[in-house]
């Protein structure tokens, strides 16, 4: 006969019932009875915990379903809001005559040449491109400001629509130590009667008259050199034979008319 201790625990408890009926052994079972009562208390607790867990699982399942439903409602509201916003923005664009262009707008502007730097009205241009910023703005604002939200003068990179809008002598590049050029304007561009204020500008043609040297070019590499090291680049690139006042004006006007989006 196998020893009780070698049986699985459930088998031992079954055999206890058998032996209780078979022999008077209650006097031997004090510890076993105590253990049995402890087991019964724990079984009751185990049952209560299981009921609680089932209840929580039901609650979790209901909350998950509610979460999905609310997420769908949010997505639906966002979609409806986006359509509404698109309609409003379309209407605002039409009412304010806002336009769109896939290619830059070209305008004229001037710089002054001082020693080894090219200067705009307030800032030096160390390279032939510039991104505008407003002294009154916080990062992320819609630059340049429009509808009088800053200034005067309002912010942005300025350019004129026509060379004749400049003072006499500028258009033909006759003024010393000055450069006249064509800039391609991109990003937000605010159109005015005579010119533009832009978010970004890059120089696409340039006529310089500095210390008796003249350079007229629309080559990107030459424009880059003229902005980075103007004095030495002007001497190196001087092309007096093709850079008279008429040629300068003709090249700038031709460059300004390129890539028009109408």
């Amino acid at each position, binding site marked *: 006969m196998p020893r009780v201790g070698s049986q699985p625990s459930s088998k031992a408890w079954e055999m206890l019932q058998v032996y209780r009926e078979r022999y008077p052994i209650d006097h031997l079972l004090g510890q076993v009875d105590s253990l049995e009562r402890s087991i019964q208390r724990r079984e009751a607790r185990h049952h209560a915990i299981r009921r609680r867990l089932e209840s929580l699982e039901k609650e979790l399942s209901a909350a998950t379903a509610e979460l999905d439903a609310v997420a769908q409602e949010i997505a639906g509201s966002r979609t409806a809001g986006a359509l509404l916003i698109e309609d409003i923005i379309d209407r605002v664009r039409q009412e*304010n*005559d*806002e*336009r*769109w*262009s*896939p*290619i*830059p*707008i070209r305008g004229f502007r001037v710089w002054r040449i001082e020693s080894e730097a090219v200067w705009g*009205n307030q800032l030096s241009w160390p390279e032939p491109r510039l991104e505008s910023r407003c002294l009154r703005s916080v990062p992320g604002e819609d630059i340049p400001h*429009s*509808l*009088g939200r800053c200034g005067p*003068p*309002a912010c942005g990179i*300025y350019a*004129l629509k026509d060379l004749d809008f400049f003072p006499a002598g500028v258009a033909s590049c006759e003024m010393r130590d000055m450069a006249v050029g064509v800039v391609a*304007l*991109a*990003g*937000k*561009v*605010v*159109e*005015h*009667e*005579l*010119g*533009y*204020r832009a978010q970004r500008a890059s120089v696409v043609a340039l006529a310089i008259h500095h210390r008796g040297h003249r350079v007229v070019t629309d080559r990107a590499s030459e424009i880059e050199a003229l902005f980075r090291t103007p004095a030495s680049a002007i001497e190196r690139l001087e092309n007096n034979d093709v850079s008279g006042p008429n040629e300068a004006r003709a090249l700038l006007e031709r460059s300004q008319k390129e890539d028009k989006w109408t």
Partner: protein
Amino acid sequence: MDIGKELRVIVVEEEEVLVEPVQVEDDRQPVESKKD
């Protein structure tokens, strides 16, 4: 620089032009030379 009254906003969104190489199959048949 006085540039006159503000007229409108123009949004310039430069689009990159992607030019993909196009491979054209040559389906011409070889011409047999006629020998007289």
